[in-house]
């Protein structure tokens, strides 16, 4: 539907589209030879600026009796750098809903859209999920324009390319695809943009809504799309040839393609000595295995392979498990579930209560359960150890906690046999997993020698002369 020549009809249609909502404001006044209407939503527009830079100058012109044209009003009276013309009724409605100011002149079937929106936005604080000891502390916020500007500030180059899309019938959310055009692979960019364009959904509230659509494997428990709340990480990934997707209303930027190793690399690693970074990475990888396998191995050894347990530890286990009402597997599963409940509860509680709850849970509840003879102290220790190690790789916590339960169950049912078969199952499964042409387990499977420089061990930055091979990119050379 298009706008019509009559100002009254246009105003009435717009008001009717918003069901005559009282917060939709329309102000009509004279400006030169025209009757002009300004339409906006109260609360979404900076009213002071609107009055100072739009209404007042136009009214002055109106009072002066000077008969100027629409173009000269726009060029000389309202000096806005960016004024968009639009004659599509639905588009005009959408722009008003997004907090833009619409200017309609009588006798014209055209509207002029002014950007005077000033939504309240959060300051650029350090994201709670990726705090660093050293390095930039700036994080994204919920405003896409601010987020784009932060990235633009880092990449002061014309090589940074952005593609804007609008997704969601009801929310008409702005989505921005960003990449470095001299590095990112065009096919991958095209693939991502096409996937985004094909999304037909009523609303996009957070970037995770899009992540679900961008996943190459729809049904999988493994993480397939990278995400970050930090501009420095997003930019570092773009320098490796990845594509960043920003969504209005979400502080979480999506990064693609994703390989598993990314979650073992922390931003901290690049802002400190490479030998220490390597040491921490080894710990992270060991922690990953401890988290997923330790409870399962403990159960398997306790139930089937007690010969594998060192004698002194075996004696401790026997002494502490004597007279327990629960079987070893139910005992471990009980402690695991208890741990998950405590975690969920402390997460949702107010901060001051959360700390108290975790202390009560960890110290008192665990200790009382052991003293009451409900669970054994080795079981608490095993689950606690696996629980602590889980958060050395926070981005993989969801997947690892699921894997931990699976390995515990197969360890209890089949011993080492079950653990090995399940482990092989997952490895082969992940080896067949290509994420936008990047092998999921690269650079270990397949082995990519060049990329091993930034894997378990991290060499100094000066030796990383090429971008990772595991992510397809046009320009491999990083430095001379």
């Amino acid at each position, binding site marked *: 539907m298009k706008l019509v020549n009559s100002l009254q009809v246009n105003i009435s249609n717009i008001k009717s589209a918003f069901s005559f909502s009282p917060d939709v404001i329309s102000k009509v006044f004279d400006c030169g030879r025209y009757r002009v209407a300004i339409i906006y939503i109260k609360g979404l527009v900076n009213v002071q600026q609107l009055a100072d830079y739009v209404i007042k100058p136009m009214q002055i012109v109106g009072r002066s009796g000077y008969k100027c044209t629409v173009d000269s009003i726009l060029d000389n009276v309202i000096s806005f750098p960016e004024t968009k013309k639009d004659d599509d009724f639905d588009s005009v409605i959408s722009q008003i809903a997004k907090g833009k100011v619409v200017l309609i002149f009588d006798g014209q079937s055209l509207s002029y859209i002014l950007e005077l929106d000033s939504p309240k936005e959060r300051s650029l604080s350090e994201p709670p999920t990726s705090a660093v000891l050293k390095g930039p502390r700036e994080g994204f916020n919920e405003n896409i324009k601010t987020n784009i500007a932060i990235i633009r500030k880092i990449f002061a180059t014309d090589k940074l390319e952005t593609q804007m899309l609008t997704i969601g019938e009801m929310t008409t959310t702005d989505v921005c695809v960003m990449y470095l055009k001299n590095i990112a692979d065009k096919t991958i960019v095209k693939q991502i943009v096409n996937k985004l364009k094909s999304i037909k959904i009523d609303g996009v509230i957070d970037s995770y809504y899009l992540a679900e659509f961008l996943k190459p494997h729809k049904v999988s428990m493994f993480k397939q799309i990278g995400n970050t709340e930090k501009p420095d990480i997003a930019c570092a990934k773009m320098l490796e040839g990845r594509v960043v997707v920003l969504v209005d209303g979400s502080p979480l930027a999506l990064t693609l393609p994703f390989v598993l190793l990314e979650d073992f690399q922390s931003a901290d690693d690049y802002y400190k000595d490479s030998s220490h970074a390597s040491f921490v990475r080894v710990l992270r990888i060991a922690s990953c295995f401890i988290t997923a396998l330790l409870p399962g191995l403990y159960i398997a050894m306790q139930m089937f*392979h007690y010969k594998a347990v060192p004698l002194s530890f075996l004696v401790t286990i026997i002494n502490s498990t004597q007279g327990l009402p629960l079987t070893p597997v139910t005992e471990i599963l009980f402690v695991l579930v208890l741990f998950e409940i405590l975690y969920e509860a402390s997460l949702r509680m107010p901060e001051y209560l959360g700390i108290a709850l975790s202390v009560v849970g960890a110290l008192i509840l665990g200790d009382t359960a052991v003293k009451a003879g409900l669970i054994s102290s080795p079981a608490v220790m095993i689950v606690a150890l696996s629980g602590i190690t889980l958060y050395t790789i926070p981005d993989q916590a969801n997947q690892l906690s699921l894997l931990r339960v699976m390995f515990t169950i197969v360890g209890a049912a089949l011993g080492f046999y079950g653990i090995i078969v399940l482990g092989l199952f997952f490895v082969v499964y992940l080896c067949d997993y290509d994420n936008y042409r990047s092998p999921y387990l690269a650079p270990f499977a397949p*082995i990519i020698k060049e990329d091993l420089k930034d894997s378990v061990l991290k060499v100094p930055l000066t030796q990383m002369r090429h971008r990772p091979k595991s992510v397809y990119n046009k320009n491999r050379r990083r430095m001379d």
Partner: protein
Amino acid sequence: MVRKINDFQCALLLCVATIGLNFLVFPALFAKYAYSDIYISVAIGLVIDFVLCSIVLRVMKNNPNVTFFQFVSRAMGKVVAVVLTMFMCIHLFIKGVLVVKEIHNYFNETLFNDIQWIIYVIPLLVFVGFIVLKNFRAYGRAMQFFVWLIVVAMVVSVVIPATQADFTNLLPLLENGSLGIWKGVFFCSFTFGDYLVLLTLMGRVEFRENSISKISKWLIITDVLIVGFCVVFSAIFGDTGLNHSLALSEVLLYTSINTLTGSINWINILFWLVILFLQVGLFFLSSAKLMREALNIKSKVVVMAIVVGLLLLTVSLLYLNLIRAINIVISLPFIITDLSIQLLLLVVYIWSSIKTGKSRKMSLVSVFNRSIVKYQLTGITGVTADQKYTSVKAGER
């Protein structure tokens, strides 16, 4: 579209196929014929295998985009190709079944007192079913993921027992004559023949300039470790090797150093289980791929159902009795049939490669001749016979 594997993945697949049987039951079987000279028997068998692998690799490199089935059917016709491919499929399937049984015995010897039949078989069938649905690229990558584990397990299994072995047990050489050695090679021939795995990979490997030498290098390292293990086995058990039917676990258990380093032993056991399961997967995956191509089955799921069904049937019939299974593969009728068909397969393969090479040369020559005529017509000829031959050779390369 065929998802190709690289030369390193090919080498690892070949190495894993080679090690499993050689490290477990077969050293004891060799001892039945060759006594303390089993390593000579094994070495001879591995050398023959290596030579055959080298021939196959060369043919594969010259025909990088053709599978074994396509290769033979183009040269010899579809019927011959179906027969030979199905033979390979059955051969690898039986190998897979043998390893399945070996793992069961290995479990009972090392990890469980007596793992129940049903508990052992159900997860295994699920695992095999899953692997059969995958491709060689995924499996090759999995091998790369576990490469360090494979290397550590092999080295530990040879080096740690070697420190405790009594090498005087190996002397005198050929105490019981050389006949036993050849008998060992003949009766235990089923443990060799890993070039068949290589044939399965034909058309699925991305060859580079030095691929053959790279694959050969890995194969030689594997063969050396296998022979080394057999040397250690003989040095520890001497003439009584026959009584130690599960070589891998017994070599580790009988070396006193492992009682001091128990955790190394356990880690080694777990590593070996991973390798053995990888090997099981490889044999059944190869078998499934061959069956699918030979019988032209479109659906992967149907092939998976057939392989899993056959495995269940075979395992049920033999009721996980390793001795019964081993007795079948070392029986004279089985060996004669198996070796004869292998020989026929090799003859057909080499003949097909000669025929393909000739036809390629012919087509190149005809293309060249046509261009000569074209040049002559335009009056700019002057190419000598020698130059003509060189150009054809270069084109072939």
